[in-house]
Every structure is written in C-alpha cells, then in structure tokens.
C-alpha cells in the first residue's frame, strides 16, 4: 500500500491538466511546483548545515543569463538553459572554493554568500542599459506565443506538466544524494570537519560537489520561472529577500525530509494567495507578517520543520 502511494499520487498529479482547465488554480499549481523545485534545490545543500544566503544570487544569474542570451543573441533556451546553469555553477565554484578551502563556515559562510546575493542584485540594477534595471526584463515573445524552439507556451496545462516533471526530477536528485556516499561524507563534515578530514573525507571537494549541484539546480529553476512568467525583475529573482524566502520556506516545511520544501512552498504560496483574495490590497504585507512570525516560531519550537515533526523518526530522510 505505502509503496504504491507515490505512484497513485503521481498519476493523479499528471491527470490534473487533462480534466481540469481553470486557469487560476492551474497557475497557482505551476507557481507552487516551480518554487518547490527551487526550495528543494536549496535544501539539497542546506540540509547538511551549509546555509547559503547566495541562492538569490544564483537564481538571478540563471534567469538573466538565459533571458539576455535569448534577446541579444537569439539563442534558443534549449542551449540557453545549459549555458545559464554552467555560468551559475562557475560562479558558485568561484565563491565556494575559497570559502571551503579557508574554512569559512557557519555565520561567516552565510554572510559571504549574502554578499553574493547583494552583488548580483546591484549588478543587474547597475547594468540597466542592458537588463532594464529595477524595472524588470521581458524575454522577447516568439511569433505565435507557442513554440517549442523558444520554450514559450501560452497554455497553463503545458507549463503544469513541465513544472511537474522538473519537480519530480528534483525530488529524485535529492533522493539520489540521500542514498549516496556523498551524504555520509557531508553528514560527517557537518558533525566535525577535522574528524571527517582525519577519516580521509576530502572536505573541500565534497562540499563543492553539493554546492555546484545545488547552484545549477537553482539556475534551472530560475530558467523555468523566467520562461513561465516571461518577466523577471532584480527584486523577484535575486537579492537577499529571495535568499531568505528560500531558506524560510524550506525550514518551515522541513529540510531533513525530501517533501519538506514542497510543503513549505504550498504553505507559503497558498497563504499569500488566500490573504490576497480575501482581503485584497488591504492585506499587502500581511502574508510576510505571518511568515516572519511562523519562521521564528518554527525555529524555536519545531526546528525539524512541519513535515519533519509529523513523521516518525525512522521514516525521515
């Protein structure tokens, strides 16, 4: 029964867009799936105590590289996305290598990566002649609006299936990591770096692997976001607020459980939408007011996150 459950849920999720066509709920589901992908990407490394506040920067690089390549060189996203992922991975390597090599850990790591988020946001704003600055940026629409070449689709159903597939892959990647030697190495490092190094774990290399993986996944999520929304702005895809938002949703859902970040995405996005619909513009800010309070309460009372606290001990992981 429990073994069949993921397949049943998966089949039900795939069936949704074939029987259900209301644009607004589908839009919310696509958004939830894309952010779940991003939060899962963060949790892949965050789960090992590597708290990066640089993912806002990674997301900004991924989205803007993709959109700029498309608009200026006409490069199809099929090539643009790998290039964006490579660029993001390269930046991640450039920042993370010295961090790990010089043992910048804990608060220091969080604050150095925070600087990266801030730099990316400032660069996007400062190069406003090319990126549109804080007014945001739109990838040029392709002739008809529906094109596999340009990865632009007007139908929500198509995007739902793409986002669903991406999200499933993210969960699989996370599962693969959890079942690999990398996990044991990183857990040992999280406990005690010196002891891990003494047990012949190559601390720098192992940490770099997971960081580059997480950054490249974030760039892919940013690409999905960019192609779906067809609008990106420095404060929605980069900067400290985005970084904190990722950490927050992942922590509320639970970073030690595969499905945790997804639950975090559902809670935060649905809460924001419910507040927006029921109270309209009066409620501007209320969602973050509640998130902020929840975040503090969760860290104090439920550091395992919602799903992590509900599941019995042995089912975690």
């Amino acid at each position, binding site marked *: 029964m429990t073994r069949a459950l993921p397949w049943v849920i998966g089949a039900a999720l795939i069936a949704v867009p074939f029987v259900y066509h209301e644009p607004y709920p589908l839009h919310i589901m696509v958004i939830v799936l894309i952010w779940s992908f991003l939060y899962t990407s963060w949790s892949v490394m965050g789960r090992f*105590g590597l*708290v990066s506040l640089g993912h806002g920067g990674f997301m900004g690089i991924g989205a803007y590289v993709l959109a700029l390549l498309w608009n200026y060189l006409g490069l199809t996203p099929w090539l643009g996305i790998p290039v964006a992922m490579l660029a993001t991975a390269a930046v991640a390597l450039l*920042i993370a290598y*010295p*961090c790990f090599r*010089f*043992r*910048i850990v*804990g*608060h*220091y790591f*969080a*604050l*150095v990566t*925070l*600087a*990266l988020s*801030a*730099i990316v946001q*400032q*660069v996007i*704003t*400062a190069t406003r002649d090319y990126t549109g600055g804080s007014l945001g940026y739109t990838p040029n629409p392709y002739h008809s609006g529906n094109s596999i070449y340009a990865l632009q689709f007007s139908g929500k159903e198509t995007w739902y299936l793409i986002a669903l597939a991406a999200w499933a892959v993210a969960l699989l990647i996370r599962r693969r990591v959890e079942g690999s030697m990398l996990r044991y190495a990183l857990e040992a490092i999280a406990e005690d770096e010196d002891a891990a190094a003494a047990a012949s774990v190559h601390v720098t290399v192992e940490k770099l692997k997971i960081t580059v993986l997480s950054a490249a996944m974030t760039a892919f999520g940013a690409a999905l976001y960019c192609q779906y929304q067809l609008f990106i702005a420095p404060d929605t895809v980069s*900067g*400290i*607020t985005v970084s*904190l938002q990722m*950490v*927050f949703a992942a*922590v509320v859902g639970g970073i030690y459980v595969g499905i945790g970040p997804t639950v975090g995405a559902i809670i935060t996005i649905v809460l924001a939408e419910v507040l927006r619909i029921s109270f309209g513009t009066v409620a*501007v*800010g*209320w*969602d*973050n*007011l509640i*998130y*902020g*309070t*929840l*975040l*503090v309460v969760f*860290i*104090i009372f439920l*550091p395992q996150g919602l799903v992590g606290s509900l599941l019995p001990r042995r089912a975690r992981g």
Partner: protein
Amino acid sequence: MFGIFDVYLLEALINGLLLGGVLALLALGLNLVFGVIDVVWICYAELIMLGMYGMYYLFTVFHLPFLLAALICIAGVGGLGMVLHVLVIAPLLGAAPINQLLATGGVLFFLQSFATVAFGIDFRNLGIRLPVLELSGMYISYARLLACGAALGSMVLLYLFLARTYTGAAIRAIAQDRQIMPLMGVDTRRIYLITSLIGGALAGLAACLLVLQYDIHPFIGLTFGPITFMICVLGGLGNMIGGFVAAFIFAEIISVSGLYLDLEWGYVFAFAFFIAMMFARPRGLMARRS
C-alpha cells in the same frame, strides 16, 4: 584643468569619510551584540527603519522638538532590542548559531511587513533640509557632518562605558570568555539584556541621524543591512576596531567609485572587495594570525 578633477575627487574622499562615520556607527551596535551574545541580528537594519518611523511620527505628527524625539527614539529602539533578545534570542541561546541567524531573519520579514501594514509603502521624510556647506568649491552635506560627528561622539561614550564602568568590564569579560564568567558570579542574563539595550539604542541613534538624509519606507533596511553585515565580517565579527577601519574603507570605495560610475557600481565594488578580502583574511582585517 587638473584642478577641477582634484576638487571633485577631494569632495568624494571627504564625503566618503563622513559616510564612513555613519557606517561605523551602524557596525558598532551589531558588533557589540555579536561580540557579547555571539548572535548576528540580521534584522538590525529593520530596527533602524522602525526608529526612523518613530522619528517621523514624533517629530512631524506629534511636533516634539527634534532632540526630545531623538531621545525617545533611542530609548524606544533600545527597548525593542531587549524585547528581541527576550522573545527570540534567549530561547535559542543553546541552539545552532545558524538557527539564531535564521530566526532574526524571520524577525526581518516580520518588521518589514509590519511597517508595510502599519505605515503603508509611501515614502516619508521629516521635511527638514539641512544646509549644504560650501568649502572652496566643494559641497559637503551638513547632515552628513552632523551624523559623522554624533557617530564618533557616541563611539567615544561607548568606549568610556566599556572601559571605565563595572558593568562595562563585565561585558568585555563575557565577550572574552562566555563559560567562565557565570562562575565568577556575573549574571549573564542581565549582561545580555544590557548589551541588547545598548545595541538597540545604537540602532536608534543611527535612525535619528539617517532620517536627516534618507526618505523613510518599509524596505529602507535593505539599503543599510547588507553593507553593515559586510563591514562587521570584514572587520572580524565582534572586533569593534576592525569594524571601525572596515567602515571607512567601504565608505571610500563607495564614494570614490560613485564619482566615476553610477552609485550601484560603488556598492558592487565594495561587495566584491569584501568577498576578495574574505579569502585573503578569512577571520577579518584585524585578526591576528594564529
């Protein structure tokens, strides 16, 4: 021909020095809290933002004299610092440092949206325009001069407090060794509360000075926040002298690059300098090599 560039450069350098004073004040409160309690208040700049709104309401709406409003504001934000400590930090003192950082990140969200809900997103200002000093072709803002002076003055006061009073000595002692001081009969809870009060009060003072130069809106904290953390880390978290030096380096980079390029590039260079320095001196500018 040479003279013109010279004057602009000199003006930028002087403005950088003045900005440095304010940044040093911002870093001071954060450094004090970190050095003593070992917690990074990610929401520090949001306390300043609340202080700025406090000034706006006290001065523009209730028509209090500026100095009285400033005193109330400093005391108020100091009180907020204590509330923050009791509600959020104290329950997490034994938790992983990163959890404390994230919890104050939650407070950041909370305060930002609280300000959005309570005060709206309109830009506000006190409506005071301080004159601009003209000095042989250079223009120097009086507000900045005042801010820098007050910042330096408060630093001297804080130094005297830490160096000359019994409580100050206890604060310094705790910063040096957290484990042993309770055994020596120092009440750590009381010292932490006093430190949070002073940290908050410094944020309140910064608010009174910044409100003269900047418009107030709920997201103003994001303008000062990142740069304050970077100054503290660059100087070595908890190292007040290091933070002081780092503040001036940062301010000069921002001010001088702002002269040749857009202001954003000043920030970009300052942040890039920060990352480069983290690799050269991972424990901060002033750290002794061990």
